[in-house]
């Protein structure tokens, strides 16, 4: 059971309280509570099956939760109000553009339903087209558009009705990489210009990091951690978060002590230290996880003992494989407590005569193995 409070001064624009949802036997959401602040770019992050899309659809009204205490949008209780009456729109993963309508008609559809006059609709549609860089495509047919263009039409269609909340369900999933990266920037830009609250669903932590004001990471229908990107990036709450957020080196050891936010961990013959980020600290002796990113691992041709000092973790190592990645080089290193990966961006910093590796205690996190309460 997880509870996330934004703690903002003003009322949240979205509240989903105590949502549970089952698909047949499968539990998709486990008593989840979500609050979104006005104007923020909030990302629901997780693997498939984590419940993020279900949560989004429940917000939109496209799915009626098996159980929920309350859903409110912009102060209005919408728990029993169907999707077509809620003040939010969705950008779907596969766009769902109406094939029998032109681009312009697609965009205007929501306005047409709201009874706007033809002239008004046209004006607003053109404005939306401008915002999404599709000016001039008003009369185009849907099947004539490229994937990227369709995505923008879907976006334009959703924003033109000026909803309180814009929901995006993995909208960039079907695009190829270059386009995806460009669109991320555009989406962020759009968000700033419109000032609408965005709730974004993705399984890509890179996307989440790039665009979000706040990230909610989900697993098995539960919220695991929430917070600004830096929180999840540098201060993972447990090993799952660290792993999901791309930390390459995860070492397991036993907790010696925690004080002043710093933890000491014993692994094998070594005593390593780092910043404790695992919430309430478990008793000494419990298994914990040291998470250190490959970028932070440095190489030295000096012996480990020479390097070891205040605020430095150092381990003797032997060289394993080297993987060339163009922009950087990954070096696999064998130590007596496991295999670590070091990422070297500066070619000149690479070292022959490798004797040890080291990293700063400030640059690694010590965290839980699993969440304190496991559902």
């Amino acid at each position, binding site marked *: 059971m997880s509870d996330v409070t934004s703690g903002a001064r003003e009322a949240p624009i979205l509240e989903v309280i105590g949502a549970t949802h089952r698909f047949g036997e499968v539990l998709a959401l486990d008593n989840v509570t979500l609050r979104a602040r006005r104007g923020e770019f909030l990302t629901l992050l997780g693997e498939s099956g984590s419940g993020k899309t279900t949560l989004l659809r429940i917000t939109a009204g496209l799915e009626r939760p098996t159980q929920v205490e309350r859903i409110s949008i912009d102060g209005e209780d919408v728990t029993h109000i169907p999707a077509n009456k809620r003040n939010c*729109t969705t950008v779907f993963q596969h766009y769902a553009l*109406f094939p029998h309508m032109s681009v312009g008609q697609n965009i205007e559809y929501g306005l047409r339903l*709201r009874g706007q006059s033809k002239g008004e609709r046209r004006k607003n549609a053109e404005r939306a087209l401008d915002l999404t860089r599709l000016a001039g495509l008003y009369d185009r047919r849907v099947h004539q558009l490229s994937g990227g263009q369709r995505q923008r039409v879907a976006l334009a*269609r959703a924003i033109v009705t000026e909803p309180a909340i814009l929901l995006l369900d993995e909208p960039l999933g079907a695009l190829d990489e270059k386009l995806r990266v460009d669109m991320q920037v555009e989406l962020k830009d759009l968000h700033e210009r419109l000032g609408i609250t965005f709730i974004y669903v993705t399984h890509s932590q890179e996307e989440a990091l790039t665009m979000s004001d706040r990230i909610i990471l989900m697993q098995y229908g539960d919220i695991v951690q929430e917070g600004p990107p830096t929180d999840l990036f540098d201060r993972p709450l447990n090993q799952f978060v660290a792993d999901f957020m791309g930390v390459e080196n995860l070492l397991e050891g036993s907790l010696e002590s925690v004080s002043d936010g710093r933890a000491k961990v014993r692994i094998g013959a070594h005593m390593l230290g780092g910043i404790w980020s695992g919430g309430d600290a478990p008793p000494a002796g419990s298994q914990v996880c040291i998470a250190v990113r490959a970028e932070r691992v440095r190489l030295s041709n000096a012996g480990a003992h020479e390097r070891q000092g205040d605020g430095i973790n150092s381990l003797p190592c032997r060289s394993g494989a080297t993987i060339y990645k163009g922009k950087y080089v990954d070096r696999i290193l064998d130590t007596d407590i496991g295999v670590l990966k070091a990422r070297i961006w500066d070619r000149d910093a690479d070292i022959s005569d490798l004797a040890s590796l080291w990293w700063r205690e400030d640059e690694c996190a010590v965290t839980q193995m699993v969440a304190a309460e496991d559902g």
Partner: protein
Amino acid sequence: MTAHVDMPPVLSSRMPLGQRIAENWSAWGSAALGYIVLGFIYFPILWLVILSVSAEPLTGFPGDWTLQWYDDMFFGSGQREGEAYGGNFRIVKPLLLSLLLAVITSVACMSASLAVGSVLPRIRRRGPFLMTFLLPLMVPGIVAGMSIFLFFRVGLHFKMGLWSLALAHFIWAFPFALLAMMVVASRFDQRLLEAASDLGASKWERFWQIEVPILKPGIFAAGFFGFLLSFNELPFSIFMRAGQTTLPLYLWIQSGAHNTSVPLIFAMSTLITIASIFLTFVAIKVGFSEKK
């Protein structure tokens, strides 16, 4: 190590036809068989048209060209006596009845196939439903016609009339109409309805503004099928006629009579056939232009 593969040889267009046929005899043979049978289907139709403008159609020989049969059929002269003679506008009543029934069936088929076709793809266990709706395809017309007749007339003592005839026509045509609709409807992306709802559309708006326009080709097809199938329907009508005579019934009765009205049947049948072929072409054209 490659296994020896017995593949049809590559056919070069520079090969003489005879050799091409010999190399791929199975394909040519299969095609030929099929087209020969199609010939057996279309020869009578073609010949019908030819004989309908021939002076002595009963011989099977195309003869001196004449429009006298059409003349007789429409305007009815006093050349031949006999009650079975089809002139004197006698085809008009059956023709009108058939047209009326065809329109009724067409409209009923369009509505019913739309109603069923839009819902059926969303149901998980569609199989049993489909099988039931396709039943008339497998039951011989006379059996079905008879069963409806016995059930309503003898069993329930309803009086037969236009309604029973229309019912029979609908039951006969509906499976075809539904099949046509299902081809379109099963391709319909249900997520479009979600998007419409998300943008604010009510149930009816979703149905009329999104679903129906996209299902249009299916609706047209269903309508055409309904019209044509009803217009030419015979076995059901034999039982359900209740004193009414449709055009096919009229022709069937006339052709059963062993007298000289047969040439007129040729003319009538030709007209119907040409009209049906024409309509079918129109339907196919409309259907194919909608599909992009």
